[in-house]
């Protein structure tokens, strides 16, 4: 009976080979397809099965993972959701991740190459990788002050430490609650997301770094810097400041916001022109300097450049080929000049930092699961935007704006605050945008802040009325 047994053995061998080939096909060849199939919870579970590292403000985890009882082991919770939403973003089952949750994902999940030692340990111990912690540069009190200031308004605030480029505050209003978007209930997530998308206040827009508005009179800081850089003007140079400025090659005129002439005999010093935010003087200055000089100055301060902080900020723009009337309009922050709050904070910070523009950043350091620091961001210079002497002169001129000019609401007793108001039309019928850009203390600034409030009143005073108090509150929060 040996032969039939051998034949049977041969058949059984074929069955064995069939099984071997089949499992190999499933686990090696088709594995990728199966992983991507809808309804495969494992990929998701794997991510949600790990303890995702926290996002910290100081030592306070504003985003952290909490163990739950459901199939998805960890739930992402945000202690002050709407307050930090523009920075943390959300971590959603349905819509993926945004903000630092997205850009720092590899660190938060522990899959970054920074964790190579930990991972080797985990491999031998058979442990799940544990995520690292991301410490932000945010200043909790400044963030809160800005958030409270914007309450009920539509707008954004960005505060920067001028000497380093660290972002101290990045706030938007209206904001959203990432807790709901990061929940484990897809129906609730979808419903809330749909509501947010329909909201005219666009809460999902990362307003501080993405929303572009004409900077209006705050752009006069750039124009003034270009004037000083040209060597043809000093703060005391007398320039024309009439009631109206006839745009070259055009019948249109530029008016001052109060309809008045800026000085006796329609003449005004550069310092005084900035203090009263004289449109006609700066429009004239723009034509004297030319579009290229303005653009060069703007670009040295970060215009026409996209920054990754590491969230990708929208590129602020100076128009490419403006004619003379357009150049005049651009010099006062109108026409096609567009800037984010981040960009205008950078302009203030560059002046405050002896003319040096720093690259802005949000991540201070990365820590391993054992809290050992694995990486620290070192400040880096973007460009030397102004000479230190010109920067000092411009600083004095901006202090004058707050102390004697349009920026009176930013005054802080005992602190020399430098600042500039702005109001811009975004279109013929659109409500104006109110701006305030400031830094303090003037001689050795610890904070530069830009406030933008959309849907503000039309008057130039709105910059001082709506935006300046918020800027002052942020400055006080940092200096206190």
């Amino acid at each position: 009976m040996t032969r039939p047994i051998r034949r049977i053995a041969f058949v059984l061998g074929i069955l064995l080979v069939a099984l071997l080939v089949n499992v190999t096909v499933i686990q090696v060849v088709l594995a990728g397809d199966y992983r991507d199939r809808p309804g495969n919870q494992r990929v998701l579970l794997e991510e949600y099965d790990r303890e995702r590292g926290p996002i910290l403000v100081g030592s306070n985890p504003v985003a952290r993972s909490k163990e739950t009882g459901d199939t998805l082991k960890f739930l992402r919770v945000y202690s002050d959701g709407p307050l930090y939403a523009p920075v943390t973003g959300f971590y959603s089952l349905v819509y993926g991740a945004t903000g630092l949750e997205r850009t720092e994902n590899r660190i938060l999940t522990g899959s970054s190459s920074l964790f190579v030692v930990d991972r080797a340990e985990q491999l031998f111990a058979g442990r799940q990788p544990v995520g690292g912690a991301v410490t932000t540069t945010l200043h909790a009190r400044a963030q809160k002050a800005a958030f409270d200031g914007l309450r009920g308004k539509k707008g954004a605030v960005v505060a920067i430490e001028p000497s380093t480029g660290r972002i101290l505050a990045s706030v938007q209003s209206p904001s959203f609650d990432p807790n709901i978007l990061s929940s484990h209930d897809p129906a609730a997530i979808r419903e809330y997301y749909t509501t947010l998308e329909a909201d005219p206040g666009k809460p999902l827009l990362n307003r501080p770094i993405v929303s572009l508005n004409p900077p209006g009179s705050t752009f006069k800081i750039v124009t003034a810097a270009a004037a000083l850089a040209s060597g043809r003007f000093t703060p005391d140079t007398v320039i024309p400041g009439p009631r109206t400025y006839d745009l070259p090659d055009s019948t249109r005129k530029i008016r001052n916001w109060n309809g008045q002439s800026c000085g006796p005999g329609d003449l005004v010093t550069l310092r005084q022109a900035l203090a009263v935010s004289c449109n006609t003087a700066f429009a004239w200055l723009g034509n004297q300097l030319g579009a290229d000089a303005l653009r060069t100055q703007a670009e040295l301060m970060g215009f026409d450049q996209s920054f990754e902080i590491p969230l990708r900020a929208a590129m602020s723009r100076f128009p490419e080929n403006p004619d003379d009337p357009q150049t005049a309009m651009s010099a006062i922050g109108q026409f096609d000049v567009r800037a984010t709050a981040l960009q205008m904070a950078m302009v203030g910070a560059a002046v405050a930092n002896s003319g040096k523009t720093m690259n802005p950043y949000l991540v201070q350091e990365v820590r391993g699961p054992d809290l050992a620091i694995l990486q620290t961001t070192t400040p880096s210079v973007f460009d030397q935007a102004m000479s230190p002497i010109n920067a000092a002169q411009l600083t004095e001129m901006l202090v004058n704006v707050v102390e004697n000019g349009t920026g009176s609401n930013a005054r802080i007793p005992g602190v020399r605050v430098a600042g500039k108001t702005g109001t811009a039309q975004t279109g013929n019928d659109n409500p104006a945008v109110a701006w305030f850009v400031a830094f303090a203390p003037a001689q050795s600034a610890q904070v530069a802040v830009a406030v933008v409030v959309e849907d503000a009143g039309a008057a130039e005073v709105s910059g001082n009325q709506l935006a300046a108090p918020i800027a002052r509150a942020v400055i006080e929060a940092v200096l206190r």
Partner: protein
Amino acid sequence: MSIPVEVMAPVGTTVRKQPSRRNLELVLLIFAWAVGVLGTLQIGWASGVEPNSQLWITTGVVGALALVMHGVVRWKARYADPFLLPVATLLTILGLVMIYRLDVAAIERAVLNESPAPTPDVYSQLTWFTVAVILFVSVLFLLRDHRILQRYTYTFGFAGLVLLVLPLAPIIGTTVNGATLWIRLGGFSFQPAELSKILLTIFFAGYLVEKRDSLALVRTKFLGIGFPRLKDLGPIIVAWLVSLGVLIFQRDLGTSLLFFGLFVSMLYIATQRRSWLILGGLMFIIGAVLAYFAFGHVRLRVTVWLDPWTYANDDGYQIVQSLFGLANGGILGAGLGQGFPNLVPFANTDFIVAALGEELGVTGLIAMLLLYAILVERGLRAAVSVRDSFGQLLAAGLSITLALQVFVIIGGVTRLIPLTGLTTPFLSYGGSSLIANWIIVALLLRISDRARRPEVTMPSPDEAVTQVVRRV
């Protein structure tokens, strides 16, 4: 499969001393035990659920049971095959490790849900293993020679049939998940089909040895192949009807397939007539087609097999989750304690292979399939080595049972063939299956001991069935 020269030695000559290779068996057993200890430790590291003292006692008991079996084999079946025991032990230990791993997952879930901790299955599986070892030892002690079994051929046949239909009996019979495979006595439930397959294999072996001469007779030739006489078709038709009966009344596709496949294979081995294979194949096809059109549950199995994705949330949920798990395992596996094998329903019984495939990867599954292959190969080797026809048929039949069962269940779980409910030998949680398979190992050891034993003068225990050994 070569036949060792010693075994072929003619009766009456003195045979030189044959190495027993028991020390090799001991070394392999220690290795199998070490694999279990490492697996247990790894689950602890990965899950953070440290093994408690009860678990370490379990590990110790498993080691002790393995040593007891080894001691009994050394004493009572000294020349038995040295690979059978370690391989079966390793598979059992892998099963225990995986059952423990699924216990850990269940406990973790319970902790998170703040629900009471479920009773771990690993300890009751250990109890079943202990019972299995007791029966294993009993077989080796009480059954000095496998040929004794041949005396009770028809008794075994009757008992096997009774056990097979027992779940249909009122009161004790129980239907679980649509299949009537269980009997419940007191607090215990038992799957009698598992034991029945051994009894019926013994019956087939005894019966076929007796009848094979007439069954091998050729009446008609067709396409050059000789077909049996019509009046000899009785047995195969009975086997076919019984298999269909199991399918119809117990809705147990797996057992049905297993019995018919086993009977036809043994018929072929006994008669050496390929015509039986062809006939059996045809009857299988007829039965399959009939079953497909007559029974909704069979049709459903086939539909889900062909396109599980459409039924991913209902009838195909298990197989789809199984495939997802296997895919997650990939080449090297997620690692013990690091996958999600508990997402597959019945992960510790029918789908334990999916759980192993997820955490140990295709590498682990291939290794595991090769362990089964070794087991079957050693069984078939015993079959060709032993001198008596009954022993040959019995060893071959038991090996084939094991092989077919592994193929049917693993093929089902990996979607090679439609899914049928069978346990995975040695691995699955459950007493009936574990006990039955360990009895098979004991019988194979007994036969292989007989085959390799060097003594030349060993009178047959039963002169009445003196063999006319036909070597081909």
